[in-house]
């Protein structure tokens, strides 16, 4: 049975369709990612599931219980981390956990607070005031706060945005650990690497719509290209010519960055430099790599994730 079922969900602001007829399911124990650029509708989708924002139409069920019109019914089942870190100054880490624990029917005892501190690696910070924590520590506390009621599902809205790479990696470990303990996790991100590393399945979202849902690997395989060649050029290059000369399956250009996908690297590279010699342009910043989710996104929408 699916933990979350979302069907034909829509929400419009004035004249903007923030979420446009979105449907998906999340299975028990899964890490489900919603990947898309800012303004794609990820947060709005999440907030409707969390009971913060009323949808214009559509249906949301958590554990077969409808969220709307009575979001109170599902609040005990979910744990939420919002995009903005919402913490009280002047309380310590332990006091915050105890206070949020008191909001739920489940009684949170000292030993359970210890477990939570352990889970998010904040044991040595339990007596620190919230405003003394680093960004990464605040983010981990806010994840711990999402766990005080031992929820069925945990929602994380861009949990690693604004963190340095090291803090991001340590947060990924925390999220994996929570998932291993049986929690279903729904997260949004605009880092394709994060989605690839963490998520069992990813929904790619743009302009309020879900474009595709699949395992990250399947999405990449779906491109039908094993290798990606990217470069910059001293002059504009005609994409049609480039595709023909390099025998590439796909070519694209984005912000001066030429990208082509091929199954035969040698043929393509020789073709590219032959073309450069003949047309008298210079190939710069040449990269050869396997394709990733960023490429999937680029392929679907014609734009980057962070524009």
């Amino acid at each position, binding site marked *: 049975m699916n933990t979350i079922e979302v069907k034909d969900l829509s929400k419009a602001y004035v004249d903007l369709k923030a979420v446009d007829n979105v449907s998906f399911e999340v299975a028990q124990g899964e890490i489900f990612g919603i990947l898309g650029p800012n303004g794609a509708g990820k947060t709005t989708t999440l907030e409707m599931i969390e*009971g913060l924002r009323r949808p214009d139409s559509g249906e949301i069920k958590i554990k077969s219980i409808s969220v709307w019109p009575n979001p109170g019914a599902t609040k005990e089942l979910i744990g939420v981390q919002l995009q903005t870190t919402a913490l009280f*100054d002047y309380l310590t880490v332990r*006091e915050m956990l105890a206070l*949020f624990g008191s909001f739920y029917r489940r009684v949170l005892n000292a030993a359970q607070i210890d477990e939570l501190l352990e889970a998010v690696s904040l044991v040595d910070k339990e007596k620190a005031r919230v405003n003394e924590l680093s960004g990464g520590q605040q983010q981990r506390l806010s994840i711990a706060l999402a766990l005080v009621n031992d929820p069925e599902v945990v929602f994380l809205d861009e949990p690693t945005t604004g963190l340095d790479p090291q803090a991001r990696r340590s947060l990924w470990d925390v999220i994996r650990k929570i998932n291993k303990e049986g929690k279903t996790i729904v997260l949004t991100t605009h880092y394709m690497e994060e989605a690839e590393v963490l998520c069992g399945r990813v929904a790619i979202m743009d302009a309020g719509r879900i474009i595709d849902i699949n395992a990250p690997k399947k999405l990449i395989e779906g491109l039908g290209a094993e290798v990606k060649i990217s470069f910059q050029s001293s002059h504009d290059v005609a994409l049609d010519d480039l595709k023909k000369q390099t025998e590439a399956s796909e070519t694209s250009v984005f912000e001066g960055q030429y990208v082509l996908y091929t199954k035969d690297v040698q043929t393509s590279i020789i073709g590219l430099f032959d073309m450069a010699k003949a047309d008298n342009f210079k190939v710069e910043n040449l990269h050869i790599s396997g394709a990733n989710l960023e490429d999937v996104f680029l392929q679907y929408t014609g734009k980057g994730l962070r524009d």
Partner: protein
Amino acid sequence: MRQFYDLLVANLKMTVRNKQALFWLFVFPLILMGLFGIVFNGGQATPRLGIVDRDNTPESHKIMEGFEKAQIIKLYEVSELKDAKKRLRAGNLDGVVVLPVGFSKDLKQAIAENDERRARQMAGENPDSVESPPKVKVDLYYDPSATFVSQVVRGSVANVLGSVDRAVSRSPTLLGLKSHSVRLTNLRYIDFLVPGIIAMTLMNSAMFGLAGTIVNYRERGILRRLKVTPQPLALFLAAQITNQMLFSILRALLLIGAAWLFFDVHVLGSYFALFVVIIIGSLAFVTIAFSVASFSRNREISDTLSNIITMPMMFLGGVFFPVDTAPAWIRPLIKALPLTYLANAMRDVMIKAEPLSAISYDLWVLVATTVVFFIISFKLWRWE
């Protein structure tokens, strides 16, 4: 109940740990009270009284001696009434007492009549005869627009007359001031100020503490974070308000304690009535604060709005200066300010020892304010 208790404790902790807020909550009103108390009290602690003896008899000399002995006023003997009035107008004197010609004659006659009446009383006649009003008048000239000084002068003069009266005539009712109603005998500026300051802090802590906190919580997404928990918002706000009330009561006691310690100010009314006034007054300003918080999109707006609301009240609501001498055109504005009623109720309880029934009008105005602003804040409330 457990949830409310946990929330309240968390709120108390947060308030106590917020050093900046503590300064505004406790230290600032103390400083304000101290400054105003010293500036307006120390400089004019003893009113300067001119005295003109136009009767010049042994009896009038006795009155003069009485004034000379009184520590609470500084005495200046002036021979001519015209001269004394000039000095009064120039601000060199705060009041002038005149013992009129024929004073001793009137006094002797009054004593004789009084003795006779007492004798009749003792003989059983007229057993229920009421004390007659003072028969011998002493003229008092003072500047009525300087309310505070004139009240002190009136109080002091009445005090002296009372004690001289008892000594000279063995009856405390023969001498009287021409200007009547000497009710606030010992009212000093600091007595007037302390209830006003307490009322003002109730307003300010709600308007700047509570409104700012709620807007801050909204701006930082804390309200939305609470909304995804099963905790009802009402409980969260109730804990906030209770926290606010507890600190208001604590602050009032602190101010009263400091005023007693440094300025010898005494609460004449009942502490229960004071408690009731604090609760009702706090609620009125709490709902105004919630309305401001609901209306304001961000902290800048809420602070500006709070200033716009509190500034006129601070100066026109009767915190620092009495409002009964204000010009007529500004009175409707004064009457529209909730702080006017709170300061008034607070003062009536603290220095006039009025019971709750006597200030019920003020209290009902505050209750009505609470209801109106509760509805407004409810209608305007926003989560984000």
